[in-house]
């Protein structure tokens, strides 16, 4: 099925060249599409000939090179994406670990921190000892501290 008038291009060409055949003139009188096309063809012709470019186009080799760089950057980002996801996951796990550990033994931790106050230091010196902290807590702190250090170093070195 033809969606446009079959004379449309001929009419545009005739309007551009100012050469009208009788057939086209006859058709123009009865076709609204072609009348509209003919009415603006001259202006469009002038517009297309009006060279608006004042500076040269970017060179093909520069565009090619930029496109390659962009492609490489995107490829590198694509490759690095799983590592980035893993890194954020690790931050989350370590932060959750610290939060969990502190929540689990918060009373003990609080008492341990209070033990540094002068009153507690005197009490300790007089033989009144603070409640003992389980070994698992120390182990947890060592593991989480190691992981935190590892993540911090990894982040710094990766950025560098």
């Amino acid at each position, binding site marked *: 099925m033809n969606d446009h008038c079959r004379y449309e291009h001929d009419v545009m060409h005739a309007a551009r060249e100012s050469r009208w055949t009788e057939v086209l003139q006859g058709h123009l009188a009865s076709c609204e*599409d072609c009348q509209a096309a003919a009415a603006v063809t001259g202006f469009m012709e002038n517009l297309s000939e*009006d060279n608006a470019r004042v500076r040269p186009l970017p060179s093909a080799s520069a565009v090619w090179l*930029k496109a390659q760089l962009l492609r490489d950057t995107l490829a590198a980002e694509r490759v690095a994406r799983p590592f980035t996801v893993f890194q954020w996951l690790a931050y989350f796990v370590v932060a959750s670990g610290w939060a969990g550990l502190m929540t689990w033994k918060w009373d003990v931790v609080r008492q341990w921190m209070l033990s540094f106050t002068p009153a507690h230091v005197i009490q300790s010196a007089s033989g009144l000892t603070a409640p003992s902290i389980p070994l698992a807590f120390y182990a947890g702190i060592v593991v989480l501290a190691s992981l935190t250090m590892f993540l911090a170093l990894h982040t710094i070195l990766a950025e560098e």
Partner: protein
Amino acid sequence: MINAMALPGHLMASREASGGRAPQKPMNEAQFEAFYRSTAGSLWSYIYRLTGNAAASDDLLQKTFFRFLRANPNVESDEHMRRYLFRTATNLAMDHFREAKRERVEEQAAATITVDYPARELKHDFQRVFSELKPQERALLWLAHVEEASHDEIGQALGVKSKSVRVLLFRARRRLADVLKNHGLGPEVVR
């Protein structure tokens, strides 16, 4: 008049040499340069007539070719390449308009200064008149009259059904005729 929608010579030759069958290989630098030389000028003009801004046209032209190369086009599928370029350029230009409109709204919210974006860089009366049309109308008219694209090609470039192109093009032509009339540039004056 340059018909950028027509097949570039080097591509026609390679297609004929391969008997019309398209070997599946990406474009290399030499092929890209030839293709760029044959299309960049008309594509820039198209973008410029849409945006009315030379710097933005340079930028959008490069972005269009970046996307074109990222899509890893098949050298022999000429129809695909041309349509892809013009469709991409049209989409980027429309995005550019949306962004400019958003910025303008923000600027107006911050201060009561009205900036008529398309008129900022216009030096030519023809372009000034043309910029009174909507972006889609400008694209339709440019593709139909300058690129001599078929309704199907225009439809693909603008993302509309080719059956709608006839109506849209008719309206755009009538609108341009009205604008020309308002400026005292009737068809007989222009021609």
